[in-house]
């Protein structure tokens, strides 16, 4: 290589090195931010101006994890009378060691209560009578307002519930004998006969009991005891449900009650038109629906030692017309509004709905706000509606970015 070529090659090498050095330096910063339009996060609050109450009296209440039994006069949510219905399976697994033949056995009902939740007077005692149900019913289709017939002339059992969480109830031989006839029936149509003729027991609150307990379906069962009562066989539940009779419900001004049974829910009209007018051109980064609970009313209405199962979230569903109760109570809600800890409001992120309304084909603007649940625990809350004072009304908070001029 000539001297000249060597020199040129060195130059090319240096050039490549300079390219790499220049291209590698980068430390962007905020120099000159006094002269630029700084993007600023801004909030806008749109009131939900149209709300109404919806009463779904036929919410589902059968074959849930929990049942409800008892009476409680809630100053906010009315007088509640909850009756539980249970029916044993026909062909339990009875070990030979019990030596059961015909009806030489006795039966008990074991009720396991939810250890955490009691609705009402936590120190009180509740009394119950057990009767045989005389009307046809089915757990999966049972509704909270279904009224089952039961034979009050023939008391099958009775018991009281204090602070204990597990109760054993002796059942009358008359009912046991009737069950035994189906248990021992080996005809082909035994199941069918059992289905249509044997309806189980109703646990009916009596007296002026001041609390509602929640039997756990997985811990509630019938027991078959041998003649000497030295050995038992478990008879799981075949169907279980409860019905609610709610009366004397006071009206709270500016608020609607919400129940897990869907006896009451709130319908809101989403402020879509105002949203389109004000924010079609906004760079929206967050949209939230806020609902305030009437916490003061809820707290002040509970006497000492009384407890009301609380709720942690609301469910929002877009309005539907087909099987609406099923949709609102038992399916996953379209939007969830968790409670904000230590605050008396619920917040639902609804950005997708807002995007669909502004840029998509979303035409539906009605939402149902409820606390539908398939747990069976009775929970209620009081949510401020559009008639509430301005700072408590449901509202849509839009968070967006604007370029603020210096």
């Amino acid at each position: 290589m000539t001297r000249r070529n060597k020199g040129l090659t060195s130059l090319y090498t240096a050039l490549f090195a300079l390219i790499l050095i220049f291209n590698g330096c980068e430390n962007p910063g905020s120099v000159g931010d006094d002269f630029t339009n700084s993007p600023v996060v801004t909030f806008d609050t749109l009131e939900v101006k149209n709300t109404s109450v919806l009463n779904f009296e036929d919410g589902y209440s059968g074959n849930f994890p929990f049942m409800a039994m008892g009476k409680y006069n809630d100053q906010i949510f009315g007088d509640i009378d909850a009756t539980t219905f249970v029916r044993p399976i026909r062909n339990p697994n009875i070990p030979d060691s019990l030596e059961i033949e015909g009806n030489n056995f006795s039966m008990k009902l074991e009720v396991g209560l939810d250890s955490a939740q009691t609705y009402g007077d936590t120190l009180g005692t509740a009394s119950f009578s057990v009767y045989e149900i005389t009307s046809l019913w089915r757990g999966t289709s049972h509704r909270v307002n279904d009224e089952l017939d039961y034979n009050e002339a023939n008391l099958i059992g009775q018991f009281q519930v204090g602070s204990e969480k597990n109760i054993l109830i002796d059942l009358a031989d008359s009912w046991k004998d009737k069950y035994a006839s189906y248990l021992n029936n080996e005809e082909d149509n035994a199941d069918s006969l059992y289905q249509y003729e044997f309806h189980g027991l109703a646990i009916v609150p009596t007296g002026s009991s001041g609390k509602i307990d929640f039997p756990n379906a997985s811990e509630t069962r019938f027991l078959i005891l041998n003649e000497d009562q030295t050995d038992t066989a478990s008879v799981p539940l075949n169907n279980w449900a409860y019905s609610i009779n709610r009366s004397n419900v006071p009206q709270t001004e500016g608020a609607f009650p919400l129940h897990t049974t869907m006896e009451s829910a709130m319908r809101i009209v989403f402020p879509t038109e105002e949203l389109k007018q004000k924010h079609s051109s906004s760079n929206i980064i967050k949209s939230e629906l806020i609902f305030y609970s009437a916490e003061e009313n809820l707290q002040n209405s509970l006497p000492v030692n009384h407890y009301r199962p609380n709720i942690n979230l609301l469910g929002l569903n877009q309005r539907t017309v087909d099987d609406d109760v099923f949709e609102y109570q038992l399916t996953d809600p379209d939007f969830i509004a968790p409670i904000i800890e230590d605050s008396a409001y619920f917040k639902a992120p609804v950005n997708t709905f807002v995007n669909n309304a502004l840029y998509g084909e979303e035409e539906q603007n009605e939402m149902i706000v409820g606390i539908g649940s398939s747990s069976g625990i009775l929970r209620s809350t009081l949510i401020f509606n559009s008639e509430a004072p301005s700072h408590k009304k449901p509202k849509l908070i839009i968070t967006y970015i604007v370029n603020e001029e210096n």
Partner: protein
Amino acid sequence: MKKINIHSFLSLAIVISIFAASSVFAQDDSSSKSKGGSFYSLFGLGFPTDNNTARELGLGIPGVSLDNSQSNSLYNPALWGKNVLTTTSSGFLFSKFNSSDNNTANENSSLQANYLQLTLPIYREKFGISASLYPVTRSNYQFTNTTNTIVTPEDDTINYRTETTGSGGVNKLEIGFGWTINKNFAFGYAPSLAFVSQKTINNAFFDRIDYGNTTISNKITGSSFSHRFGALLSFQNIISSDDRITIGSSFILPVEISVDEKIVSTKQVNGRDREVTLNEQSGLGAKLPAEWTGGVTYYPSNLFNISLEGKLQTWSEAESSINSNTQSLELSDRTKLGLGAEYHPYKTNSTSFLSNFRYSGGVSFDSGHLSFQGDDINTLWFSAGLGIISPFSNSTIDISAQYGLRGTTSNNLVREKIWALNLSVNLTELMFFRPKLN
């Protein structure tokens, strides 16, 4: 066919690597290696770009009077009529910006392809045509806002930071001709399509996951026709028997461009990410100023030349109805004056290694096109250049280094110290044969 030598190969390698790295004339940062440029390119249609070859930049002048029949020049269409060879050339710019105001400092760097030009001598040293693509203004910035804190209506405290990046600008696609009418006078005309393609991206980053991150893009597009004229006067034997002087001038008519502005963001709509238009405006006005460039170059001998050139752009009459970022700074007329000299030892018969190159140096003052409360955002440039001449053809590689001081920190404005490395590659006869017509 001539044998391709090692230097031609390396030249091509540099060109290809830089083209690949900078995605030639890419209009947005998504496809460009350019990261950040001048803070002042944030304003208006971007910062005016000087599309000079590295040779001209080494001299610190536009090059309107720099007569050279063996290489390209963009600035004066009249020069295209003097070309001897078919020539293609391209320029690249590597810049590093150290910016500071009264509070903070930051550092940006950028890599840009400047221009691409092809000239064909239809009638040797009489009539030539040129086709070129080059930027007129360039937005190229990356800007981070300091962390902000807001309190939500529910008394939540949220911190966020925003980042703004800009890219694109005004470019021209130009086809023109140069005609050497006689030995003293040449004339040129170049119509072009001026098109705007500018994009500003704002990102916001939050310290809360439920806020996510958001991006909004502002796209500006539009086009119009532009016209450029050039003239060159050449005189020989002025003082001595082998000296000469060239006086050049070019003029660009002002351009009004009707632009469309579209603000878009990506949102999840009906379960899918979709780009939605937040705002759209059509028929907005953008203006490019009239530009006059003039200068004189004196050649005492074929080894040395000295140039004095100036440029005036009437930016004060180029208010646009787009890009509100300009509101805090005003557009003002831009004047640029440059003085430079060049030495050509490669034309001697010396065998010294240092005699294989062309050397240049210069200084220029640019009053800038922006001002704030009477303070012009001016730039003082010092430059030096080196020309590498192919021993086998007339192809050249020119390298120039520039150091510039731009702006001021008074009024909390931004002062930039700029290092720029320019490279232009001028290929003749390597890939193009002389037309048989000649």
